[in-house]
């Protein structure tokens, strides 16, 4: 029976307003709430729904990160994943998308899933690369930015959110899907599920175990805040607004 592999990333919670370290060496993450990347949560929700419809029998959730990433994997297990794999990286290590894709490929070769689902991008680095890279290395179809996924036999029909509207693709399985916001609304975790999740298997492996050599090829030399827009003016009515627009030559 079919397996689904879901990849999740531990990121600064989307509600946190990030702060840069004063010396420009990075983003301050100490004492900051960390969560599952929201797009990956959507990916997990979709996998769980597929399994619950009988389209697959097992949902495996995987992540690459420091030991603390176990917290996010436990949350994923509480949402309903059957088991978890953590590929443990050194604290503070940078995992570039190409390394993440290679690592996921190693897991794919081990687990042989029919479907891999991940978020279209992580909200920290905003790279939007890993799913596509995995599909390339695996030499399988990709359907990115999915807003609906229908499975039938060994095929999937996916509607994708693209700049010009909605595009529909048909792909042969196995395949890689990346999620857009409107694919589903992830469930909330209930307390009894958190208790149950503690008993579910969570395996920790290393890059070496998987035969992957992490590479860091992109050097990040400086972090800076975006340029600030100058504070504008308030107008009291439409006439004043039209006057201001005319003065700027905009209407």
């Amino acid at each position: 029976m079919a397996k689904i592999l879901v990849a999740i990333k531990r990121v600064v919670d989307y509600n946190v307003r990030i702060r840069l370290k004063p010396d420009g060496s990075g983003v301050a993450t100490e004492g900051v709430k960390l969560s599952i990347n929201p797009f990956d949560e959507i990916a997990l929700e979709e996998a769980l729904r597929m399994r619950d419809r009988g389209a697959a029998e097992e949902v495996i959730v995987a992540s690459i990160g420091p030991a603390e990433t176990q917290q996010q994997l436990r949350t994923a297990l509480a949402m309903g994943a059957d088991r978890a794999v953590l590929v443990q990286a050194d604290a503070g290590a940078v995992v570039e998308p190409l390394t993440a894709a290679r690592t996921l490929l190693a897991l794919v070769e081990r687990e042989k899933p029919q479907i891999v689902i991940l978020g279209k991008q992580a909200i920290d680095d905003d790279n939007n690369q890993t799913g596509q890279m995995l599909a390339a290395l695996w030499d399988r179809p990709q359907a990115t930015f999915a807003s609906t996924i229908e499975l039938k036999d060994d095929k999937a029909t996916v509607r994708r959110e693209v700049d010009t509207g909605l595009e529909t693709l048909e792909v042969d399985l196995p395949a890689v899907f990346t999620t857009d916001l409107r694919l589903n609304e992830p469930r909330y975790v209930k307390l009894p599920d958190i208790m149950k999740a503690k008993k579910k298997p969570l395996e920790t492996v290393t890059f070496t175990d998987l035969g992957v050599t992490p590479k860091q090829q992109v050097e990040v030399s400086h972090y800076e805040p975006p340029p600030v827009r100058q504070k504008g003016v308030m107008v009291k009515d439409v006439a004043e607004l039209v006057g201001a627009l005319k003065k700027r030559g905009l209407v």
Partner: protein
Amino acid sequence: MAANKILIVAEHAGGALNPSTAKCVTCARAIEDGEITVAVFATDGSSVAAQAAALQGVTQVLQIDNAANGHPLAAVLAPQIAALADGFTHVFGPSTTFGKDLMPRVAALIDTPQLSDIMAVESAHCFRRPIYAGNAIITVKVPADLKIVATVRTASFEAVADGGAASVEKRDVQVDLPTHTRFVEISAASSDRPDLQTARTVVSGGRALGSADGFRILYSLAEKLGAAVGASRAAVDAGYVPNDMQVGQTGKIISPELYIAVGISGAIQHLTGIKDARTIVAINKDAEAPIFEVADIGLVGDLFALVPELEKQLA
């Protein structure tokens, strides 16, 4: 011979070159000692290739005609681009859904990292790009011996003007193409209004419009202004307008001369999409809305009264 040879993957549809390609050319021209080639993948790319050849700064256009290239499928295009990339130092695509889907697949086949959303060129191997929804800008450097694959943040670059006269060469790329991915259809919300990503003026609405019907006052104002119409994620999620109208971090990143935000509170992910607008006007009944922190001109009040009044006074 130029030290940097840059290959740009053209985005096009219906025989027309997408303006994002001309923006990629501007980005590529910022690289010193560079030579720019544009690749056009199509069933018959003659018309698109001619448009690309007319862009200033382009030296050569490669036209790769193949029945399999009728619709831009990443799985089909990527192996052809990877094969073509031999001899180039850089491979660029636009940071549109076309380029975001395609370029990482190319990078993985070439076995090189990708730089996403480059917004400034520091040198041939050093660029700046936004992270955390544009709340931080990082400087990234790639070793000189690696080929650079990148997507270009189109809102950061002006389109290059016409006036070039590059040569067009038909090229046969011999690689096995997969059949595991098939195009079915595209449903575009047809509209006579200007394109959201290239319009000079954009009028955008939020959840405060209340319904699909509520958006009518914006369409009417947009018509008067010759403007495109956008929306916040909240308005799209509520079903008032289709997804392709969404402006923001996960929707479209735009840079119009004038952006009029109506009934949009200004969530951080929306502001990310409009940071590059020249002038931002906000109309909102809540004087404390975060949109007023970035607006150049703010007006507090009932949008259902103010928008029709604005349209009238623009007469």
